[in-house]
């Protein structure tokens, strides 16, 4: 009997070993205020994984293709929970690559685990500069998303080019994210030899931002740099409305995270914010393919307006495709081999752009200021600036 069981077990194990899927982990907020964004990341990854699996999976060395499998964990936007989930996925589930960190604090908490254990970590959302520029000698953290310090440069560039602004003022939420962008914006301004009209902070729970904005107005600001999540951003817009002052507003992507038009009122459309992708307008072949796949898989997606937040889907899709290429280049699921695999990617015609040598030992961010698109809310949809009135 014992022998029979052993034979059975061996027989069961053999084909399983040959086709054992490569596990991909995702740690993100799946509940709470950012749940929608976590779902967008999931969808982007899943559509990419389905596409790869339909073609037979990833080919590692001489083996036949191995399917990819996605494992998700909820971090509830809490760094400690993100760390527990990351450990579980890395060490128990043995994921080849961990995706995650919707929130910068969560991503920053996972970075040391990845670097110390030489396990690849891919960030498809959180924009905090030190996530990829983490100072580690041996860096295993990659990103396909916006980066604060590059967004700040792009915000300045956009204000000058589009609005011919000469004297912008900063209105920043008083938290580490606002602080990180204050640093970035100061550096961007210094690089061009200009100064800010003023730098004002406000609390996320402030009801009236008029006093801060009045200071910027009195200082002669001809445009505003806005950094804040959707709620605080809407407080700024409503305060501007009450003042009867509506200078051009160039914003980080905070407003994209919620019902901005409902919260900020009709003036929401005056805020131009950064995005990495939009499914509106003429789509590339990849864009059309991804949109079609999304509509086929998720019944609630009936058009480009329902892919929201689009940046989550687009970043996750490209990051997964690049990761699959890195695994194939690595020829194994070993962490260090995959890390070096990312460096060996030559070209990938992706959703956001055509990537040429996206990663190197010095460059762990695949996107830069040329890859951003500027968007605004028209009614309840995020559309590229100027596309709809």
């Amino acid at each position, binding site marked *: 009997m014992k022998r029979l069981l052993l034979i059975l077990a061996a027989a069961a194990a053999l084909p399983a070993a040959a086709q054992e899927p490569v596990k991909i982990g995702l740690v993100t907020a799946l509940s709470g205020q950012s749940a929608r964004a976590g779902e967008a990341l999931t969808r982007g990854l899943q559509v990419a994984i389905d596409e790869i699996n339909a073609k037979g999976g990833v080919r590692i060395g001489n083996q036949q293709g191995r399917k990819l499998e996605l494992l998700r964990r909820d971090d509830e936007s809490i760094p400690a929970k993100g760390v527990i989930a990351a450990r579980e996925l890395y060490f128990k589930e043995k994921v080849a690559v961990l995706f995650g960190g919707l929130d910068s604090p969560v991503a920053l908490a996972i970075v040391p685990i990845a670097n110390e254990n030489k396990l690849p970590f891919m960030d498809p959302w959180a924009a905090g500069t030190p996530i990829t520029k983490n100072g580690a000698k041996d860096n295993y953290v990659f990103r396909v998303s916006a980066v604060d310090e590059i967004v700040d440069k792009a915000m300045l560039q956009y204000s000058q080019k589009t609005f011919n602004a000469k004297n912008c003022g900063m209105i920043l939420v008083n938290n580490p994210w606002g602080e990180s962008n204050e640093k970035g914006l100061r550096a961007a301004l210094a690089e061009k030899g200009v100064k800010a009209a003023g730098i*004002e902070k406000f609390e996320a729970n402030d*009801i*009236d931002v*008029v*006093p801060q904005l*009045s200071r910027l107005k009195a200082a002669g600001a001809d445009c505003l740099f806005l950094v804040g999540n959707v*709620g605080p951003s809407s*407080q700024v817009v409503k305060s501007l409305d*009450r003042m009867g002052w509506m200078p051009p507003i160039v914003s980080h992507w905070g407003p994209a995270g919620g019902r901005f038009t409902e*919260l900020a009122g009709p003036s929401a459309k005056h805020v131009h914010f950064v995005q990495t992708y939009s499914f509106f307008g003429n789509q590339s072949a990849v864009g059309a393919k991804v949109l079609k796949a999304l509509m086929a898989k998720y019944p609630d997606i009936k058009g480009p307006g329902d892919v929201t937040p689009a940046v989550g889907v687009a970043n996750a899709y490209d990051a997964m495709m690049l990761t699959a290429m890195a695994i194939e280049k690595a020829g194994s699921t070993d962490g260090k081999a995959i890390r070096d695999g990312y460096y060996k990617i030559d070209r990938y015609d992706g959703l956001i752009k055509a990537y040429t040598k996206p990663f190197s030992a010095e460059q762990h961010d695949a996107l830069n200021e040329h890859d951003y698109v500027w968007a605004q809310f028209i009614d309840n949809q995020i559309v590229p600036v100027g596309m709809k009135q």
Partner: protein
Amino acid sequence: MIGSALVSGLGLGSMYGLLALGFYVTYAVSSTVNFAQGSSMMLGAVFTYTFAVRLGWPFAPAAVLALLLCALYGLLVEVLAVRPFARRGSNAWLMATVALGIIADNSVLFTFGKEPRGLALPWAAGATEVLGLHVSLLQLAIPAVGLALAAALHEFSRRTRLGKAMLAVVQNADAARLMGINVPLAIMAAYAVSAVFAGVAGIMIAPLFNVHSDMGTVFGLKAFAVAILGGITSAWGVMLAGLLFGLVESLTTALLGSAYTQIVTFTLVIVALALMPNGLFGRAELKKV
């Protein structure tokens, strides 16, 4: 710049004052307060949003029902979190009211949702020019409503039977009881009035702010500072302290910059209380032994 800061300060200040009046009303009658006054304010906004936006009712009945529910919540606070403790001479109502507020906030979080929602009032969105300042009608309405309610409270306590009964309880609860005044009823009425004031503040602020479960937390704390600053024993003092607090806050931001706002306002609160321990307008309480 100073003009618009004054308008902002008066608007917010009168709402601090209104919330602080809620502290005053219950403290005067029973020497207890609902520490989670911010939750009553949040409930006013959340109920109004639910009736006016989700159920599509006209604004007036939505606001009236929301305020009635606030009054009911005030009664609950008194019956569940204050009376059982105060009756035994315990100070545990301090913690019990905070706990009930946390329960209210979290119940709203689960039922209303975590996403902040916007309550737009079309009639309040209009703006006008006053002395060359661009001012929204709501910003003018807020201090007017705040002062009108303070005046109404004054009249109520002077002219109505229940108001007079409450005043009698304030002066001497034991004597009032001997005169046949229903003291528990007067205290319950005070808690209902207190919650209604907070609810009105919530409804007035909602269009300027967002509706979400913890919208009242910081506001409630500041209102308590205002109540203490005004001297919690004087109604008009509390209201004036609210206006003062709002003005100092917005003028500090406008003149010195937002980095200094909290430091300056709360330093002033400490200094004021160090110099005048009973608050700006309060009377020292006599303790007869």
